[in-house]
């Protein structure tokens, strides 16, 4: 199995989620992260003190999938998360050795 981690723009989450559901991905976990990259942050000013906030709010989507779904999933995420402007984010793929569904004890592909 593969874990696909996609760091995307917060406002693209709904689109990405729908796109994944459409190709039969039934579960995922998302979390809020702060991203640093080429995209510029903003400046906050409080009584003259300026703070450059260069970490931007991003959403990390984590989805563990069967090996054979990988290309499909990557395509779908790229398609749905892309706006073409700096800051669209990245996708990272890593290997998952084992998966378990806690409720039933099912393992690996069965667990997804």
């Amino acid at each position, binding site marked *: 199995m593969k874990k696909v981690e996609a760091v995307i723009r917060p406002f693209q989450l709904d689109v990405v989620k729908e796109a994944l559901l459409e190709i039969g991905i039934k579960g995922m976990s998302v979390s809020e992260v702060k991203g640093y990259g080429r995209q510029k942050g903003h400046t*906050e*000013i*409080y*009584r*003259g*003190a*300026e*703070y450059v906030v260069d970490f931007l709010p991003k959403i990390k989507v984590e989805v563990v999938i069967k090996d054979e779904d990988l290309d499909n999933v990557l395509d779908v995420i790229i398609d749905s998360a892309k706006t073409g402007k700096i800051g669209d984010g990245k996708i990272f793929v890593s290997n998952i050795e084992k998966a378990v569904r806690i409720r039933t004890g099912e393992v690996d592909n069965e667990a997804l």
Partner: protein
Amino acid sequence: MKLYRKSCLIASLLIFAPSMSFAGTKFNSGDTAWLLTATALVMLMTPAGLALFYGGMSRGKNILNTIGLSFAAYATVSIMWVIWGFSLSFGKDINGIIGSMQYLFMSGIGVKTLVGSIPTFVFASFQMTFAAITVGLISGSVVERLKFSSWIVFTVLWVTFVYAPIAHWVWGGGWLSNLGALDFAGGTVVHINAGVAGLVFALMLGKRRGFRKIAMPPSSIVLTVLGAALLWFGWFGFNAGSALSANGLSGAAFLSTNTAAAIGAASWMFVDWLTHKHPTMLGGASGAVAGLVAVTPAAGYVNIIGALVIGAVSGVLGWFGASYLKYKFDYDDSLDAFGVHGLNGIWGALATGIFADPAIGSAKGLLYGNPHQLFVQLIAVLATITYSALGTFILVKITSAVTNGLRVSDEEELKGLDISIHTEKGFEI
């Protein structure tokens, strides 16, 4: 220094107070109704208005402690005021310096004792709320690093040895009463006094760890704006209540107060806009407070044009104090008690000497042909600054000795004072 008019008024009223009764002609239920209300309004300023205004500006890990300093100041002063504070300030004058202890535990005051047209109990309550907020204001200079025990000790000492004497000199029949300075509702006694004390305290306490090196984002400008709105609301009691009656003078003070606050907010935001291309809400909230401070000594003396000028300048001055002066001289007046209250207290006191309009109050300022008034105001300002700075210096030293230092440990400062002092969090949502 509400010297000339109000303090004289109060002083003379106090002298005759015991002989007045409900049966007499002076008691007025309308005035009493307004002063009861005004007292409640000013009360709200400390544990709610100031607490949120300051709390929202402090970091998330210190918000509760910052609120706690205002809350504790209010509670502490409330207790000491009825025991000895009121008597020290408004007891029978001893050599123009201090009040006698005759009113210890409010003894000798009954439900029929009056000050002017209102019961003495109401007058004493009203005055108490002033003492409390004055201390509360000081906390803005020292938040995010001060020990809680030091704060309590300082509060008791400072109200006793700095606030009460000045209040006596100015309002209790002391030596400043005869100087002829104008201070409608406490520009010197409250704002210059608190601002200067804050600055001295901040210098002695030292800077917060990481000051000017790390980001110190306010926990909630939303709460700060709410706090400013509550301060604005309460300030109607502060200024219009200082007429000690419900009449046209209260009305004039009310409208001047609102006007200066509004234009103070606008001018601070405008300077923001000019210098940073963005109007900030913290600027708006701060500017409103700046305007309220500056108009405090002037509220019952100036006309609307005076109020507009006083307020417009106040926003610029507060901005200058908080966004420039502090960094220029590199001191950590954390929430700008000096930058906002000190500077605008001075400005307001002087402005009263310039704009006082005999058609509103009974005094004439520079613009109405009385340059002497401005000179008197200057004397009053300098006297307050000097006594407050010196007194605060000594009392901070004593506090430090009594509480074994003033600052929390570095580790506690890093963790945040909410957890380290109070074992609590501000928010868990």
